[in-house]
């Protein structure tokens, strides 16, 4: 889910900071004010427990959090480019507040089927779960800076154990969100993939596109 606008102002020179148990409520505050969907507690707990400052981070301007990005490494799904079943399970867990259980089932499902796939086993991808910038601070390159900092980190460390198996970066954009589409496609060279129908449960339109970019 992406909430972003194209930029025309001078970029804000934001700085970054990690998400911890002490400030995670700011992430909730940002997401709540930016997205039409509520994320469940498990989402926030996971962000804190993982403590991956390079993939989940805040953007600070003038002392306040004005934006945040949350990404994670996950196993590559098995059927085709972007297994809709798996993506759907994840998305539901994220976007619609279902509990941990659903999510685990989804992951287990993909792991189980990965053996029967033609692709090499154990390949991974970077999934951008959320990118949000407070409305008042949009159009000033905050989102761009956040995405760039994550992609740069992956690129610089592409051969380290953590990212060795990561082949692509992927995310979902609501079909109506043209701004976000342009942001990723024009700004970062993402490819617009297939549409996933009824990806979201309680918002309209409920469909999304899969956007992805090869990392190697």
């Amino acid at each position, binding site marked *: 889910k992406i909430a972003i606008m194209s930029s025309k102002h001078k970029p804000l020179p934001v700085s970054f900071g990690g998400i911890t*148990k002490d*400030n995670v409520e*700011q992430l909730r505050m940002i997401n709540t*004010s930016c997205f039409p969907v509520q994320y469940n507690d498990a989402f926030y707990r996971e962000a804190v427990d993982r403590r991956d400052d390079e993939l989940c981070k805040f953007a600070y*301007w003038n002392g*306040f959090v*004005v934006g945040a990005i949350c990404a994670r490494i996950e196993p590559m799904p098995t059927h085709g480019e972007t297994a809709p079943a798996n993506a759907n399970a994840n998305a539901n867990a994220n976007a619609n507040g279902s509990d941990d259980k659903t999510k685990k089932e989804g992951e287990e499902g993909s792991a189980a089927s990965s053996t029967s796939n033609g692709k090499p086993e154990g390949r991974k991808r970077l999934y951008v779960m959320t990118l949000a910038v407070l409305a008042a601070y949009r159009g*000033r390159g905050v989102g761009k800076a956040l995405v760039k900092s994550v992609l740069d980190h992956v690129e610089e460390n592409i051969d380290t154990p953590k990212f060795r198996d990561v082949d692509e970066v992927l995310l979902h954009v609501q079909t109506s969100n043209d701004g976000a589409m342009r942001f990723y496609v024009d700004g970062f060279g993402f490819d617009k993939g297939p549409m996933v129908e009824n990806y979201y449960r309680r918002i309209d339109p409920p469909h999304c596109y899969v956007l992805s970019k090869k990392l190697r």
Partner: protein
Amino acid sequence: MKTKQRSHVCWHVYGLLHRADREYNEAIKAYKQALRIDSENLQILRDLSLLQVQMRDLSGFLVTRHTILTLKSNQRMNWLTYAVAKHLNGDLAGAVSVIDIYLGTMPEDSDEHKRGYESGELALYKNRALAEIPDNLQTALDHLEECKTVVMDQTAWLMTKGTYQLQLGRYDDASKTFLSLLERGLTEDYRVHSGYMCAVLGADNETCQAAMKLKGTATLATMKPLAADQRQALLKTYRGEFAERFPKSPAIRRIPLTLLEGDELKAAIDDHCRRGLTRGVPSLGSDLAALFLIERDGKYVTAADAVDIKAHSTLAAVVDLAEGYITSLLSESKFPGDDNKCESPSTILWAWYLRAYMHELCGEYPAALDIVDKCIEHTPTAVDMYELKGRILMASGDAEAAADCLDSGRDLDKQDRYINNQTTKYMLQAGRQSVAGERIALFVKHEGNPEQMLSDMQCSWYELELADCLRRQKEWGKSLKKYSSVVKHFEDWHEDQFDFHSYCIRKVTLRAYIDVLQFEDDLWGLENYARAAEGISRLYLHLYDNPDLTKEDEEPDYASMTAAQRKKAKAIARKKKKAAEKKAEEEKAAAVEAQKAAQKKGIKAPVMDEDPNGETLLKKDPLEEAKKFSAILSRSAPRRISTWLLQYDVAMRRKKPLLAMQALFKGRAIDAQSGELFVRIVDFAENAAPEADSHEAAKEVLNSELPRLLNGKDVCSFVQDAAASAKSDPLTDLSLRVAIASAMVKTKAGSSSDAASLIVDQGLDGRGVSVKTVKAALDCLTEFGDEASAAKTKWIEAVKARFPLIKDFD
């Protein structure tokens, strides 16, 4: 002791035991007894002298130190302590000569004559003694020049020099000295600026002394009104030479704001605001509020009441600017007239914040809330906005919502101790002490009992708030316990000076030592002590007035019952008692268990609280306790009006009319417009009949002084006069109006409806309007009964318009 009465060792140890129990007077007696047997025992003499200075037996201290010096004159410490003893006894010249003699015994090339920390401190200490001798500043200044090469603390040296030069009227020299302090990097020390201004303007001695004692951002320019040409002279320097030489100094940028007027002032504030808003300086509003000065008796005071702030021309300028910023930032993200620079999105946030703050100062709470809500919507991650909103909610009468608002701000940043403390405070003010306890515990070590830990850390503000909260909940014993805990901290701080009597002398930090002694002498006048002492006294007075509150569950009147009833009643009583005992047992067992568990883990066992409910405090004689603390406050905090109100209340209950009357005069000298004082003056005039057995002279004093208290009138016309003058001044403080109205009814100086109209007719446009005072006014109107019911309705309406969130207001 019994078998060896002639042993000095025994007496000495006996004294040490008393000392360990903090029974200093007993210890002094024992030491003296020991010295009678062995008069030249240095160890005992030293111990005695320490206790003497601790107890401020200064003449005794001097004698003892003289004996010690005579016995052992080859130790520096003995010379210095003797000098200090002379100083403390007011013999300044003596102190100087002791130091001179000591230095004279030192060879020329010893460390005492070279540049060094200790020699420098000694020189500056001697200089201070010299300066304290009346009409001796020239000598002090000369000595200062002489010792320049020895002194390390050049800042203090220059500061002293500048001060002397000012007082000697050598303004040119003084201004050079203060300038060199600025050059040394003290541009942010406003005292230096005060000194410089005094020098440039050639201020008289009294003004100079007052100006050098100012604190914070106050300077001569904010202390009293300056003439136009004086301001111009200062402005020329500050905006010209200083601005150029010290371009990075915030103080030098800010000082012109205190010198300008009218449009020029507005332009300067504009500049100041833009800078602060772009950078996001939360304190910008309070910084500007310090500019709302009003003249009173030739001096400036900062406007504190909403009425005075609202009428202030500087406020109007700030508000006008802020609204201009908001409009311009909203439409084109720029400051008005600034074509080049686009502001970042946080600038509008801070502009709103500033505007809301100004609304808050003016008591315009609904408007303030509207704006602060915009701030939170704009940047929901900004903790400062929640704090401001909480403060406004609190002021507008919704303590619950205020506490919740702060708590949601606290949630955003759990490492922010300030917001955590503030949340705790608000929770306590909203009566939610268990939540407050959880919040404050987050910043306390996670082992043991947080309450105990906070007490160990001498966290007075928390204990005071908690005590207030418990008192509101009628938990008398627990509240007394918390207040007493704060008192105990102060006793500990008083005790702490003990170590410094020898340490400071050894390290030759003599200037600081004299300051510490002074601080300790003033300890009981500090705000937190006064709050605690007053809390205790007020609570005891309440218990004294309502003795039923502390009575144990009394035995029912068995005699009047039938046998069957009696049997039943006794059985119930037994059951109750048993249950209470069982509960106490269980609690104790749990505490012991906890202690054991802690010991197992190797943590220092928490101290068991034998009396968690403060039962022992409740058993004390309430009037006696109230008197004890009231007496301390009248001695140490004589500038607080509440000290004298308390003293009055205690004295009246003790049937000491003279003492009560003295308290009223003292109070009136502080604030003649106080409503609380007015109530008591009327009460005194009505009720202070001298005791039948009191002394003739006392009666005479009373009879001759009472009319002076009432301006030579009888009570009735005194009240009528007050009512007339309150009516003629629409700004009269609300609490005074309520006091006069209530007195009108009590003394039959006017009808209830007249009294009610005195409160209601002027609406909420006067001074002193707050949730607390409007509630007091409502209570008063309720007391007036039916005759005032129309006025009451009107009052409720008016208040609800201004404080829409006010609770329990019907």
